[in-house]
């Protein structure tokens, strides 16, 4: 039951962020084409969020689209908590998923690897593996970063490990 519910939810989210059609890594010729799809997907997703008042991150990349940085935020008790994140496109992309780093939270939670890499092993990587090469950066943020923040930040706030 839980699986079917999550599938519906995934579809809705995926609907707001279109999937990729081109399977290409930064080393491939088709990378710019893939990158175009990535951007289109991101633009569409962010536009929808803006319409619905659900805007929760900002992102930008270098010119080749290999290095990505951005900010994400979480609102709780009338307070907005903002965190910087970054990730690089691995050479095996899209077969292997990028690893998101939130350096400022390093050492504050157990759900994080050394260097500030957030833990996506359980909830995201299996999903990515099943959906590669259709999933792209927008999906990395929707299914990888967003749930991590929704779970971890209230916990850290409660523990007092994060201040305003």
């Amino acid at each position, binding site marked *: 039951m839980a699986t079917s519910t999550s599938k519906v939810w995934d579809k809705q989210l995926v609907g707001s962020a279109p999937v990729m059609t081109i399977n290409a890594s930064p080393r491939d010729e088709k990378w*710019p084409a893939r*990158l175009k799809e990535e951007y289109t997907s991101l633009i569409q997703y962010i536009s929808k969020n803006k319409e619905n*008042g659900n805007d929760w991150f900002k992102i930008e*990349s270098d010119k080749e689209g290999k290095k990505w940085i951005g900010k994400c935020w979480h609102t709780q008790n009338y307070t907005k908590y903002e965190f910087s994140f970054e990730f690089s496109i691995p050479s095996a992309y899209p077969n292997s998923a990028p690893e998101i780093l939130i350096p400022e939270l390093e050492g504050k939670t157990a759900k994080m690897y050394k260097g500030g890499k957030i833990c996506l092993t359980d909830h995201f990587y299996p999903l990515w593996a099943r959906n590669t090469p259709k999933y792209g950066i927008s999906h990395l943020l929707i299914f990888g970063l967003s749930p991590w923040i929704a779970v971890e930040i209230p916990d850290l706030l409660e523990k007092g490990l994060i201040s305003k």
Partner: protein
Amino acid sequence: MATNEWTDVHALQDMLHQVQNAPEPPRLSEQNCVEIIQKIIKLNLIELIHTLDGKEYLTHEQLFKEIREETLAQGGRVSLLSLQTNLNVDIGYIQKFTSDLSKQDNQWLIIQGDFINRRYLDKWSEELNDNLQEAGILSITDICTHHNFTKDFVLNQIQQRLGHSIQGHIEHHNADVVFTDGYLERQKSSIRGILNATTQPLKVQTILKRTMKEEKLFHSILTQLLTSGEIKGTIRGSLDKELFIPNFYIEAQEKWIDSSIQANGYTDYERLLKSGIPDPISYVQKNYDTITYFQLRKQFGKNAVQLDVENFKLILLDSCCISNQLLSQIEANIENTLTSGEWVDIVSIAPPVFNQQDCIMLLQLIASQISNNVQFKLFSETAVVSELFLENLPSKFDDVIEAKVQRITASCSYLNELFQVLTGRVSKFKVVYSASKPKKGKGKGKRKVHEQEDELSNQYVYPELEFMNSIEISRYLPRYIQEISPDFREELAAYLEQPLTSHFHSMLLDSIKSKTKGQLSSTDIYNQLTMCWYHLAIFKQAIDEAIGIPGEIFTRYLLSSICSEITNLLLYLLIKDFCNEPINDPKTFTEAKRMKLISLLNEKQKPLMVQLSKSLHGKEIDIFFLTMDKIFEHKAFSIKLDYPNTKKRKSIISGLIDTFEEQLKEEKDFATILHLATVISYTKVTGLVLHSPGKGVPHILDFLANNIPEEKIRVLKKCQSLIIKKMIHMRENDKWDNVQDFEQETQRLNQELIVSTEEVISMIFWH
């Protein structure tokens, strides 16, 4: 190509940048809105109610408004549950707000979970009135069911509106229906018409079915009509059996019952019930002079009250009542039957409607009134049988008894024993202890408890003595008695068992007697022998102890009489079983006969019996006794007679005196009277009984002369001299010339002797 691609990528990068940095339209998310509203509520700035799905908030005023509008939209009545569904607000709020609304405004009501506006009730009452005017009557229950209201509410609403919006009536004691005046009048007329037209009892239920369904209203109308006298009749019975009976029918019925009772002399309650009298006994008691069976029994029990047949009176029995006149007729009928030695079953002469119990009661009343001169017995509670009839009844079985007796006498090998039993010398019955069945104990095996209760029962020693049991008699009875009821037959058979058996025994005894021709049984002979031996012992003692009396005369007489009898009886006992020729009474054996019979004895018995016979002719009695002792000791005879002990002796002496006295009373011969009187007097003086011959009397008188008062001896002597005188006179009859003179003298002497012997007898008995 690749450059173009990258150009597009950069363009997209710029677009992303623009999109991200574009200003966000001012908006509050739902979450924020919720938070803001909750904040406002918390600060008591506003009171809101949220809908069940949580998507909307309502103010109190809005909810009030929505409830009112929804109710009116539904026609003025809506269930609270419908409100909850339609307004999408929790039922708790609905209940609270409708309740508040009904309290604030009397136009609103909550009835049985429904929220109602008064306009709805007005409309409802108008509709009700329309229906009522159309139908004439409406059931409150139907209204309640149809409109889903409680009875109290409906009644309350109708009563408020009666005479205004509802034109009708509700009776105080019958609040089940509401009806119009027109309806009431129509029903009254209908019921009045039916009841006035009816000529016989009519079931109220039938009238009800034909007129109206409302039973209570019907009864109310009926009561009104009866009270006002518009219809003439009575209601009897209750519930389903309720009857309307017109007055003229009751009058006719009473006349008919009266004439029936007067003519028949009885009537049964069932008949009265069928003719519509619900409580016949009360009816009879109310209309006639009555007395119950038990009261009458009590009266009869105290003293012999004759029935007063002049005044008509009914006696109440179990299922009917009977007039005193008819009772006395039946009584006379029964008495006549009994007087003529017959029997009658009261069931056959009582009126056919009388049941068993009535017949029993009737017979008990009659039995207590029947004259004491008429002897009778009651059988099976209803049959009355005269004693005469019962006495004659066993003789009707004579043919059956005769056949059985002939069969027994022809085939039975032990008739002598039967004879003994029948003559009472041996008990007819053997005592048998019959143990009742052991009660089963609760335990198993060895623990069974055998609690035996001994019961004594009689069984005949010989099966031949049993005639018939009651079942067999019962089978024969219809041969001799016609139209006998089974119960009576059984009881009569049980009653007859004993008399019939006695009758059978007497016939059997007669038959055995005639068959054996007077031959005595061994036991008889032995008993006679013993009795003779006792007498001999007593007489010998008297001779031995006598003073002033010559013993020789008495000894010789004793030898020739008692001793001779003993010898003969002994001889008879010895030869009885093997002697082929018929033997007559052993007491009458002559000497020759005796010797002939002795010769038949075996060699062991013969010498002693010869010796005994010879001893009878001697002068000494001791030889006889010595010979007897030898016989007792001899094995060949196997007989032993004891001498009587003192107690036995006393009883035998008293028995002998009684016998003498009895003989004296009966005796007509003058000499014997004197003989007996002398012997009795001697015994009274000495306590000894003399077995005296006639010639011993003067010797005894001589002894008595010195031992009894002079006046007594004078009486005896006078009698003696008169007897001697008469003897001489009789002996000298040839000396008389004139026979007439002789006769006259004889008569004179006889007269004197009668007077004298009477004196003797009175002396013996009164002095």
